[in-house]
């Protein structure tokens, strides 16, 4: 067991592309940390640097306190599960599971004992003599997991291990991985592009964008208090809506102006954004979760008119794409203040089924308890 520490780690490819920029991150001993981000953000590169499959351009990676920059992969005692599993096609399942133990020159009896214990644990006993080709995707995935846990590795590295499975299997194995990790208590760094996987698996989640760490927090915190508009848009499905608004003052209390409405902010929002008091007259980005938008009844104090653009009905909930008069901003805008991209639609998620059609107009209400406020550069108001 060991902790994994990235200390100011950078990775620059020979063509001058910076994939990782000064990454500082600690995976605590026994923790499952998920590294998540859109494709090309450098998350797999970060993982491969820990593994020793990729050289480190600058900074240090420490395993259990020891700098491992110059140590080759085979001497780091880390186990890795690959996206395509990397099972040895010419070896049976048993041989695949034995391989890391044989490489460590364990005695034959010990190898047999361990392989059989792991096979039982992962329900692979009946498949031991088969070749990987004769296994289903889920079974291959379990063999790959087995090969990782059969030896006492200091930490597990997982590179999108579920992305080749169908949706149903993914949910099942996701739970299995979480249970297994808790049971074994092995430090695990898990890379994925799927925020649902990140939220359900991670004890903490690190969000990476273009090689830069955006935020590290437990899933709930990441959802409630995203550190910037990128995290706000990336976490949650669909992500947070961002609308332009202005801070005003009324009777000495801060009031948020959103289109025609003046919203008196509840205590909860004010305590989470202490900096607000000092910003009267300033433009802000207002983050609203799609789940916090509801249909306004006629008696509502504040309501927003909107026109339905598109409807996605999932059965248990309905996703509405809405056009409003409010200025909305894309969460991946690099400079939200100057963004000239066409405004993205406002997204609302309503529980249950609704019979809206494109072109319908309706009145929206907003649950303002969960508002998240960002300054115009995209960072959360402190």
């Amino acid at each position, binding site marked *: 067991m060991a902790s994994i520490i990235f200390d100011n780690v950078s990775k620059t490819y020979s063509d001058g592309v910076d994939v990782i920029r000064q990454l500082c991150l600690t995976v605590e001993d026994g923790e499952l940390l998920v590294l998540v981000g859109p494709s090309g953000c450098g998350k797999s590169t970060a993982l491969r640097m820990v593994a020793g499959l990729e050289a480190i351009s600058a900074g240090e990676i420490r395993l259990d306190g020891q700098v491992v920059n110059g140590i*080759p992969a085979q001497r780091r005692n880390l186990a890795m599960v690959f996206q395509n599993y990397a*099972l040895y096609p*010419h070896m049976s399942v048993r041989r695949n599971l034995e391989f890391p133990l044989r490489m460590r020159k364990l005695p034959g009896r010990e190898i047999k004992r361990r392989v059989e214990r792991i096979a039982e644990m992962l329900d692979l006993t009946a498949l031991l003599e088969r070749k990987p080709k004769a296994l289903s995707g889920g079974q291959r995935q379990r063999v790959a997991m087995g090969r990782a846990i059969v030896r006492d590795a200091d930490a597990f590295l997982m590179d999108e291990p579920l992305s080749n499975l169908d949706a149903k299997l993914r949910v099942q194995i996701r739970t299995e991985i979480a249970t297994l990790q808790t049971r074994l208590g092995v430090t695990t760094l898990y890379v994925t592009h799927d925020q649902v996987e990140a939220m359900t698996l991670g004890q903490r989640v690190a969000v990476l964008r273009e090689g830069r760490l955006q935020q590290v927090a437990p899933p709930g915190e990441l959802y409630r208090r995203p550190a910037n508009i990128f995290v706000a848009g990336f976490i949650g499905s669909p992500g947070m809506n961002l609308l332009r608004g202005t801070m005003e003052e009324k009777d000495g209390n801060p009031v948020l102006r959103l289109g025609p409405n003046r919203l008196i902010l509840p205590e909860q929002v004010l305590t989470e954004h202490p900096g607000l008091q000092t910003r009267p007259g300033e433009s802000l980005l207002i983050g609203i979760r799609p789940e916090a938008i509801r249909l306004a009844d006629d008696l509502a104090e504040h309501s927003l008119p909107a026109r339905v653009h598109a409807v996605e009905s999932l059965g248990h909930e309905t996703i509405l794409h809405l056009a409003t008069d409010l200025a909305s901003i894309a969460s991946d805008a690099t400079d939200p203040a100057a963004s000239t991209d066409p405004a993205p639609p406002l997204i609302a998620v309503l529980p249950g089924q609704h019979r809206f059609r494109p072109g319908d107009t309706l009145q929206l209400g907003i649950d303002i308890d969960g508002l998240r406020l960002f300054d115009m550069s995209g960072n959360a108001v402190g």
Partner: protein
Amino acid sequence: MQASDQTPTALMLAIPALLGLALFILLPFLTALALAFTDLRLGSPLPVELVGLEQFRRIFSDADFLRALANNLLFAAVVVPLQTALALALALLLNQRLRGTVVFRTLFFMPVVFPMSLVAVIWTLIYAPGPNGMMNALLTLLSFGYWEAHDFLRDPVLALPAIMLLSIWQGSGFQMVILLAGLQSIPQELYEGAAMDGAGRRQQLFHITLPQLRNPLIFVMLVTTILAFRLFDQVQIMTRGGPDNATTTVMYETVEAVFTRQQVARACAMAVVFFLLVLAITWLQRRLVRQQREVT
């Protein structure tokens, strides 16, 4: 096979190729097979008679032919493993992502492009007798003067090894290219997985590279074996089977029989034996490769 409305068209399109195959491969082979059971001899005034297995009995009691078979077997036994090992070593070296590998790949492949007759003439010069011959001079240099000059191609002990050496030099480039292609189709992920599992370079070679290279290796070894049995050009140009039958081969004996001694029937019997040998090797290859398909 199920006939569809496209079958007549397909047959029509295949006819030219089928005709060519029948005319130039099937017909000559059947003729040879038939002639092998006669006593046909060009220029002989006697009528041709069926003699049954007599020709086969004769060639298998002919010391020259048996020597030729033995030479072929020895040649294959030495050249196939050495050439494959050399080609594998070259392929592994040139599979590194280093500058200049393309130049070396080209250099090592060049002998394959040269016509064998030209190669044979040049190597005859290399093997020139006397201390000024290139090979003699080199060996003298390497042995600090202990090597005594030999006339390689006229030495009963050295003639066959001399031909083996040049054959390996000429043939390994072809094998190397095929093995290189095989090496490059091994997924990088397997090496990464093996490294994570604690395998060093040597263990990766034995547990990943060689098993993954099994099919290309079987292929090149069998092609080389067949080529080894077809050994003719080098012998014809460099030694004419000599000295004292030290370098004669089945092909050489066959050509000698039909073109020098006009013994058509005897040559046909030899050709049939040669065909059966090659057939057996091919069958062996198919069996080995099929096994591999089943296991992966």
